[in-house]
């Protein structure tokens, strides 16, 4: 059945939807950031490694 909403008169995002969105998006962002930081902080392997840019180091 269609539900009617009155714009600007009440909050129409339900609490469960709001928390579902917030928890999921924050969790996924944090996990992505965590792994990406781990990559950036990982010590470089001794040469010769797979990457050319650090060959002169």
């Amino acid at each position, binding site marked *: 059945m*269609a*539900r*009617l*909403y*009155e*714009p*600007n008169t009440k*909050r*129409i*995002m*339900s609490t*469960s*939807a*709001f928390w*579902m*969105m917030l928890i*999921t*998006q924050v969790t*996924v*962002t944090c*996990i*992505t950031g965590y*792994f*990406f930081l*781990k*990559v*950036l902080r*990982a010590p470089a*392997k001794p040469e*010769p*490694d*797979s*990457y*050319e*840019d*650090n060959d002169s180091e």
Partner: protein
Amino acid sequence: MSSETQSWGSRVGLILAMAGNAVGLGNFLRFPVQAVQNGGGTFIIPYLVCFLLMGIPLLWIEWSSGRYGGKSGNHSTPFILGSMGRRKFWRYFGVFGIYTNIAVAAYYCYIESWTLSYVFHSLAQTFTGMSQTEVAAFFTTYVDISQNTLGIPYEAVFFYVLCLVLNTWILSKGLKGGVEKVAKIGMPMLILFGVFLAIRALTLGTSGASEGCLDCDSTLGLNFLWEPQFDSLTNFNVWLAAAGQIFFTLSVGMGTIHCYAAYVRPKDDIALNAMTAGWMNGFVEIVLGASIVIPIAVGYLGLDWVKENAGFSMAFQTMPFLFGKWGVALGTLAGVMWFGLLFFAGITSSLAMGTPWMGFMQDEFGFSIKKSAITFGLITLVMGLPTVFFFNEGVFDQYDYWGATVGIVIFALAESILFSWIFGIDKGWDEINAGSDITLPRIYKPIIKYITPTILLVIFVMSLITPKNNDYANALENGWELDEGSIIGRAMNMSRPYNRESFADHFETEHAGVVELQTQEEGFAVIVHETDAPEEVAAMYVFTEDDQAPMVRSGEVITAGQPIASGSFLNDIFYIHLARFMLIGLFVFICALVWRASMNRTQNES
């Protein structure tokens, strides 16, 4: 072998290229629609479960298989899989890892060319002042190659070739100088554009609601997308849809990951790299992908409209109209960002599709990077032109289904069995862990061995024999009737019960009803009205050739399948056969190359 050796410039570059390979148009267009159709916010639960049980294991399998193959100088799946299995038979399963990429690149570059063209049209403010119907009609005109919208003859073909030339040129610069460079620019730009549009969507609220539209609110779109419906967790179809989405979004089962990873040295990490690229794709999909199209569309057009029309075409047929409501400056900027975002998502994926072919030709036939890139461009052009010229006749869909859907499921199932059961899970586990910068949970060892292949087998079997209307309960109770969308149903063209001959001397109506025969300027039209509601038009068939004549009279009641016109007809089934012939031809051609390469190897060894 080629004297040119390729390598990655940096680890971050490799990860961005891998993430770019996975991030595609589906992240922004397929995921939100799948979520809407499968339980809203609850879809995320089966989605994440499938990511953990199937996505991550497949990523590790493919990264480690690629790096293992790279040790012995193999950079494409025929000989990567061949090095893991004792039988030569596996080399021919590896053909899927090249075939799928060329088949997909052929039509994917066409979508990519739409995004490129729409960037130009956004800059030129083509859509300014257009109504929603006009914007939708613009797309229809665009894909009709006989027409042009920019004054360029064969505009769709022009942009397709331009896109292919661009891909070929970038590929000819190699991994570090081409693919990686594009990923390093494209991925940050994509995220930047995505964040801008997502913020705009989240803050849109009811400001775009037209008078009288009570359900025009972007927040309502978010609510619709994220409202948990926990009862959908017990629905098998939701789980199948989530597994399918994970499968497509990660670009597993294609052979591109193997190829990229083949250039990683044995002592370097792959486990953390795989996790980072996989989660980055998840971020783009769940955080950005879910926050753009649906909320903006609901904000302007209302929830009911979105429920009925949510789909891939919204990107081109709806979004330009909605951006037009933001004023000229912001609307132009949003259009450039939206289509720019889709273009970057597309090109980072299509570049990845070129590398397995290039790796294969360099390894086995001594091609240079440039020569292998040009041959990829040419073969993709030959395969892709039918999708451009016969887009409306269904060639595009055939490539999409038999290349991107069936091909990758078969390949992923085969590689997971090979990795866990032929190569051996102990050896495979050591391979994944070698050089790892993270400690892998041991629980993944049995998951990779038992659960991942089982999920893939279920997906394959269910795709093969999908019951009618996806109604499993009914199929089990009342007999298993195949759905027309199942693999068998598609192979048998079940969705086309009429006009099944390529060349015919009559045309059959697909709709029953009452006939209205109408004389046109050129030829005649048969209009079929609904029997119960004569004012409703069920279908209209226009016949323009001189040798075509009506076989029905006005007022006649006809049944579906009844001949309504005589003459000579070329039915759409011809183009479907053409597409399948092209795809089978491509597969056989690559098999022949693998056979030739195997012979060369045998000769060199002796």
